[in-house]
């Protein structure tokens, strides 16, 4: 498939999405009320609150700092607990969903892989917010509802990536271990898992960062994490408090991202060996002088301690319902999941007319809108990234781009400054969850689909700018240096040499982000727009749990279809353009995929 095909398809898709969503350009301007909110909101950015803005709240007892730390603790705690559960699902599911595990098994056993994959796809296709809605309704307010809501989809995502990583790992060592008499399981673990382990750990750290952001977003369905406090302060017009919560989310996200990036090198390349001559006479002396990474060791210990503390600390939130009451609630909830015509008549044949009515009038339209919302946001993010990467890539914006001296220039500081500014913007937008960005955009733009598109596009452009710049910085093309040596500028070199050679890699990244956009689009409707999320939210408010379940299943199905389409396109890209068009960065796979 050529670049031109993809570009034309992208533009055509954007036009269809524009007309399907009935988008109006004037809606891109903030509403009159939104303008005032925007001014107040952004002017508060430089003066985040260190105390409650309202004197009435101040007099209630707990200080603002206590509230902030409490919400941060709950957010982190749920993220860590959910990740430990997700790791169990991810490791077990990843192994059983991989081809590498089943490759020497009989056909009937290999069918197990499809069953496992289907289960994992189902649990990861439903957004964590939707899991939270379902579990909160079924279990009542309980920390476990929040933790399972994060653990299930994240377990599914980890399993998918783990399985792909295991399948992409070279099996040469495993073949030798089998040839040397090792059992299948020993050869798999010592030959394949041990080889893939650095990539698996790096990805798990990235998922922890995502889980923290997702945990914050759970506040929007009433779980007292940072998102809950942020939304409450915003609705009260306490924008300085909102900024404090936002800065906290950004700071923790970036700290986790920084930690993951620092861990990546020693994990994939190993600790830097000592410069001095190694003793050769004794094992003990060699062991004491071995290359060690204090960061890897410290991180492992810190994570284990943090996990222990999170699991054994007393719960701070939850209703006082007894187990019997919870059980009654659960039974009532499961009974109400049965479609209401069937519940009333006991006749299951009525399910078809119920389904048909709902799907024709609302379901198909909502799925269509959700798909286009996600697609348009992904396309915008891709367009911003394609232009912006030329500015943010460090190897292009230094005084010697791609190691070619370009002469003395006074504009260098301007260029470096603007690149740093764009990088900072990308950093902030990718650290703020899409749902929170959408919530803020809706207050500014008013209830318009633009608010959701802008929010989704900004977050994903932030991610793509970083990944794309990494691709360019790690790329060794040669033609770029020739162009620069012949007098071309940085952007000419980027557009004529670097971008064409890295284009397929960008497309792969974009397709991954497109999957994410579709998944996020299923819940953004909960904030206003008539997509699947809107229907879910509405059904829940009206206590129509049968309808709520149907919309959740539809949203899962849409995400599954998106995954399937993206998977097919990606394998098409990989097949058409093997190395060197698709480079593998340091280590092997990006943890962000």
């Amino acid at each position, binding site marked *: 498939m050529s670049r031109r095909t993809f570009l034309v398809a992208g533009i055509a898709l954007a036009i269809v999405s524009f007309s399907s969503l009935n988008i109006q350009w004037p809606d891109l301007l903030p509403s009159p009320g939104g303008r005032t909110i925007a001014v107040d909101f952004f002017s508060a950015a430089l003066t985040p609150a260190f105390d409650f803005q309202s004197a009435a709240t101040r007099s209630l007892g707990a200080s603002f700092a206590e509230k902030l730390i409490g919400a941060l603790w709950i957010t982190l705690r749920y993220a860590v607990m959910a990740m430990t559960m997700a790791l169990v699902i991810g490791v077990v599911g990843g192994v059983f969903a991989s081809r590498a595990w089943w490759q020497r098994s009989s056909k009937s056993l290999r069918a197990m892989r499809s069953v496992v994959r289907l289960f994992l796809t189902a649990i990861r296709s439903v957004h964590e917010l939707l899991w939270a809605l379902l579990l909160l309704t079924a279990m009542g307010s309980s920390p476990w509802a929040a933790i399972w809501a994060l653990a299930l989809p994240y377990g599914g995502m980890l399993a998918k990536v783990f399985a792909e990583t295991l399948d992409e790992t070279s099996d*040469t*060592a495993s*073949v*030798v*271990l*089998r*040839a*040397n*008499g*090792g*059992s299948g*399981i*020993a*050869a798999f*673990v*010592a*030959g394949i898992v*041990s*080889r893939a*382990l*650095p990539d698996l750990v790096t990805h798990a750290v990235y998922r922890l960062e995502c889980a923290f952001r997702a945990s914050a977003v759970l506040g929007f369905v009433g779980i007292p994490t940072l998102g809950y406090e942020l939304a409450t302060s915003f609705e009260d017009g306490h924008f300085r408090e909102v900024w404090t919560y936002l800065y906290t989310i950004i700071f923790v996200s970036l700290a986790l991202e920084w930690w993951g990036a620092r861990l990546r090198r020693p994990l*994939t*390349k*190993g*600790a830097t*060996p000592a410069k001095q*001559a*190694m*003793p*050769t006479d*004794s*094992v003990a002396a*060699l*062991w004491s002088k*071995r*290359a060690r990474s204090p960061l890897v060791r410290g991180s492992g210990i810190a994570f284990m301690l943090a996990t222990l503390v999170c699991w054994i600390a007393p719960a701070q939130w939850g209703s006082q319902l007894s187990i019997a009451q919870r059980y009654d609630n659960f039974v009532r909830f499961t009974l109400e999941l049965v479609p209401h015509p069937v519940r009333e008549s006991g006749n299951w044949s009525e399910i078809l007319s119920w389904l048909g009515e709902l799907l024709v009038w609302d379901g198909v339209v909502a799925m269509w809108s959700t798909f286009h919302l996600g697609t348009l946001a992904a396309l915008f993010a891709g367009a911003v990234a394609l232009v912006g990467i030329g500015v943010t890539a460090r190897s292009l914006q230094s005084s010697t781009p791609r190691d070619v001296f370009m002469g003395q220039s006074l504009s260098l500081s301007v260029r470096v400054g603007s690149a740093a500014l764009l990088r900072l913007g990308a950093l902030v937008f990718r650290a703020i969850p899409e749902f929170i960005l959408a919530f803020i955009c809706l207050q500014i733009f008013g209830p318009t689909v633009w608010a959701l598109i802008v929010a989704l596009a900004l977050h994903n452009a932030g991610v793509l700018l970083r990944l794309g710049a990494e691709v360019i910085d790690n790329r060794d093309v040669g033609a770029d240096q020739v162009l620069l040596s012949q007098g071309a500028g940085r952007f000419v070199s980027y557009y004529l040499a670097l971008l064409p050679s890295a284009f397929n890699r960008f497309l792969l990244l974009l397709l991954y982000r497109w999957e994410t956009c579709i998944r996020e689009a299923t819940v953004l409707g909960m904030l206003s727009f008539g997509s699947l999320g809107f229907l879910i939210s509405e059904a829940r408010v009206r206590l129509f749990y049968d309808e709520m379940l149907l919309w959740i299943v539809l949203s899962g199905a849409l995400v599954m279809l998106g995954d399937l389409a993206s998977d097919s396109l990606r394998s098409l890209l990989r097949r058409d353009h093997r190395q060197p068009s698709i480079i593998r960065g340091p280590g092997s796979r990006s943890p962000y995929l």
Partner: protein
Amino acid sequence: MFELRAATLRYDTGGTTPALNSIDLSIQTGEQICLLGASGAGKSSLLGLLNGRLQPSAGSVSYLGVSLQDMSVKTLRQARGQMAWIPQDLGLVPSLRVSHNVSSGQVASKGFWGMMRSLVLMSQTEQARIHELLQRLGIPEKMFTRTDQLSGGQQQRVAIARALHQGPRVILADEPVSAVDPTRAEDLLRLLSELSREAGVTLVVSLHDARLAQRFFRRFVGLRNGQIEIDGELTDRELQKLYRLPS
């Protein structure tokens, strides 16, 4: 030690020509044999048959008097535990330390949990044994270094160390020196040959470079189009015939 009787190997790729065609070969304990032949002649397939990784489409392959095809899973695993395998790409785990890679040679005798124990907490006895082995191979200082931080030549020594740590009765090496320069290739072959001789281990090595092979081996098995053309000492005439060189 090995007996091949009319062993034929056909891959399931739809081709009409078998990879190995009615091979008869006998290998005695302690022998050092070099397999020669152009690419696609059947050297790797023959090594695969000896290891039992590949099953002959016709004929038989026996190890110590027992047919490899008739062995149970357990017996075949035990037999393979006596055969060290060194592939062309060495098959090392790059992210593991040298000690772990060497230790993995004993995967058959240790079993799954023993292997896991060695990966997490290796016994001092095993560490000492591996250290001694690495000393003989000239890289003791690399014992706790990550394998991907070693040079190509050092990685090859690690692969040889893994093979010797296994305590094998036979070493099967598939073009083990194809990726290094001639001087290093000679050093490594000498090392492999000497250490195998010292330990009384049978050595079957496939090589491309016949001139290099002539310095270390007395018995040559030359393959062409899946058939044995030479078995014994190598003369220039036979070499020309094997590679169809102009005389």
